[in-house]
């Protein structure tokens, strides 16, 4: 286990290093951030001065060396626009995004598990066909379009739910969360459902396929020959075996949710880090973009690590080494 941990940490460092390298050099192709921060009236001298102040007059590899040096001290740079540490800016917004993603995961799982198992166990049932048709539609819809239709219908036309923002928050462990208040909870519903839609549809399909595959395997037939009932066959034997690949995809899906949170947050004015990213892209705020990608990379490595741990809990054949 310790060896495994060391191995994972080495991998994580390698991944983060690669990400920082790629991100940093690719970012240097973006628009000139200096032009975004000086007032439009700025003279050439002022622009040059700002460039020096931001360290952008240095050759790229020097900038990278400085960046890397700061990184080792936990400093991901200072936002050109906000003039505050990029890390702080992102961490401030992280709870909102994680909250949204967490609720989307809850919604996806709550719907996908029963639907997927049902459709996999009784593939020829009419209800299964409806589930599958619906899930196919779910992965065919552009999520941003869906979001705006939701706002249009549920908020503007029907007035059932608020259209945007995070609403009232309450503090838990010193972090503000929206779902703790009634108002905040109402705010989270639409964006969480919008965000969940794609993952939900894709999980239904995956779970169904896995259940169908597992149900054809010998050990299921052997269990039937033992006289095991359908219910036990499905839930004791099939489901757990079907879950192993689902866990991997689910890990990747958490990443996808974080990525698509950028879109959802933009539509619903959800104050998360995805919206910060889109805004920073629009303003060429390089330190934030770099920091965002680094943090997201770290999160993914962590998620993958968790997925591996979950594996060993589900599947005794997998040995962490």
């Amino acid at each position, binding site marked *: 286990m310790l*060896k*495994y941990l*060391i*191995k994972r940490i*080495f*991998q994580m460092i390698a991944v983060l290093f690669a990400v920082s390298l790629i991100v940093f050099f690719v970012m240097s192709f973006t628009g000139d951030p200096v032009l975004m921060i000086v007032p439009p009236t700025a003279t050439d001298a002022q622009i040059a001065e700002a460039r020096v102040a931001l360290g952008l007059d240095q050759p790229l590899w020097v900038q990278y060396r400085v960046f890397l040096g700061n990184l080792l001290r936990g400093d991901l740079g200072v936002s050109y626009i906000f003039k505050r540490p990029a890390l702080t800016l992102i961490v401030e917004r992280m709870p909102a995004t994680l909250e949204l993603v967490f609720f989307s995961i809850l919604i996806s799982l709550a719907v996908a598990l029963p639907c997927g198992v049902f459709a996999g166990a009784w593939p020829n049932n009419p209800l299964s066909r409806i589930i599958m048709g619906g899930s196919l539609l779910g992965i065919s819809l552009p999520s941003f379009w869906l979001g705006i239709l939701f706002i249009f219908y549920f908020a503007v036309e029907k007035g059932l739910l608020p259209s945007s923002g995070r609403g009232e928050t309450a503090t838990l462990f010193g972090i503000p969360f929206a779902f703790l208040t009634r108002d905040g909870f109402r705010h989270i519903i639409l964006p969480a459902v919008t965000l969940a839609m794609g993952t939900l549809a894709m999980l239904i399909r995956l779970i169904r396929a896995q259940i169908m595959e597992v149900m054809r395997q010998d050990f299921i037939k052997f269990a039937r020959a033992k006289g095991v009932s359908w219910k036990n066959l499905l839930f004791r034997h099939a489901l757990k075996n079907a879950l192993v690949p689902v866990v991997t995809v689910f890990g990747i899906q958490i990443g996808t949710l974080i990525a698509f949170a950028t879109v959802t947050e933009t539509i619903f004015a959800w104050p998360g880090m995805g919206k910060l990213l889109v805004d920073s892209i629009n303003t060429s705020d390089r330190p934030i973009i770099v920091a965002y990608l680094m943090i997201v990379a770290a999160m993914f490595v962590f998620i993958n690590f968790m997925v591996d741990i979950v594996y060993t809990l589900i599947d005794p054949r997998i040995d962490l*080494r």
Partner: protein
Amino acid sequence: MNNTGKMHDPKNILEVSDLVQTFTQPYGILDRLTGRPKKTVHAVNGVSFSVRRGEVFSLVGESGCGKSTTARTIVRLLEPKSGTLLFDGQDITKFTPAEMMPVRKKMQMIFQDPYASLNPRQRIREIVMEPMLFHREAADREEAHVKMLRLLDIVGFRPEQADRYPHQFSGGQRQRIGIARALATNPTFLAADEPVSALDVSIQAQVLNLMMDLRDEFNLSYLFIAHDLSVVRHVTERLGIMYLGFIVEQGERDRIFEKPLHPYTQALLAVAPTLDRKIAAVPLSGDVPSPIHLPVGCPFASRCPQKMSICETNRPKLRILDGRAVACHLY
């Protein structure tokens, strides 16, 4: 001709001496950093035998004993780790792919799984013609076509069947197609890796008969890999019994079948299912040791009913005894 300085007997088409084959699991930087032990599978551990011209030599053993690996190393699908391979008097152990080219013509293989050994996307015609054309056994496609039809006829197909795909044939038929492909370059030596173990009994006899007929017609020599002793007894002149990558007993067929010396050979013969007698009391217990950690003593010691204390510590060498070679401390 023979650059190892060893004596070469021109009666032998193939001479294998001290052949060693190992597989190493991938070992990356991270493994090195975390100090993970390097795992090496010792598949073949110093195997020596020879195949005479026109003879069938068999290697027999249970799955995982290294017999298939030996065959695949001999035809140079795998690079030998050490040892010498003399084929037709030539030392082919270190041959480059280019140098192997003329040897490949003479040395072909029949595979175990008739379903996996034919490319599902090639027509029968192409499967048989590809080696011919590649090795210029035929001047042009037309000549190759004629030769292909003749080969198919030999193994029992009608000309119109040449345009079909493998999935349109049964297992036995596919195995015959595999034999036709092996014959396409006019080889003198065929390595047959469990050629009938995947076949039904009635088909097994057909294929075995075909192989024996071809031996007479084309003056072939076979290296025959099998686990079924009754089949081996039927086809072979000499055989070697393999266990955990070692040959434990080797010699003339009749001597071994009539009076097996090695306890493992005895056990194999005792448990071989036959129509004519009841299974003897099972003499063996336990499992084969891991080929990753070879025992220091006799490889068979852990399961041997006649184990002595020396067997745990000293590995017996093959010794000539009663007209065959055997590696056992009992003798």
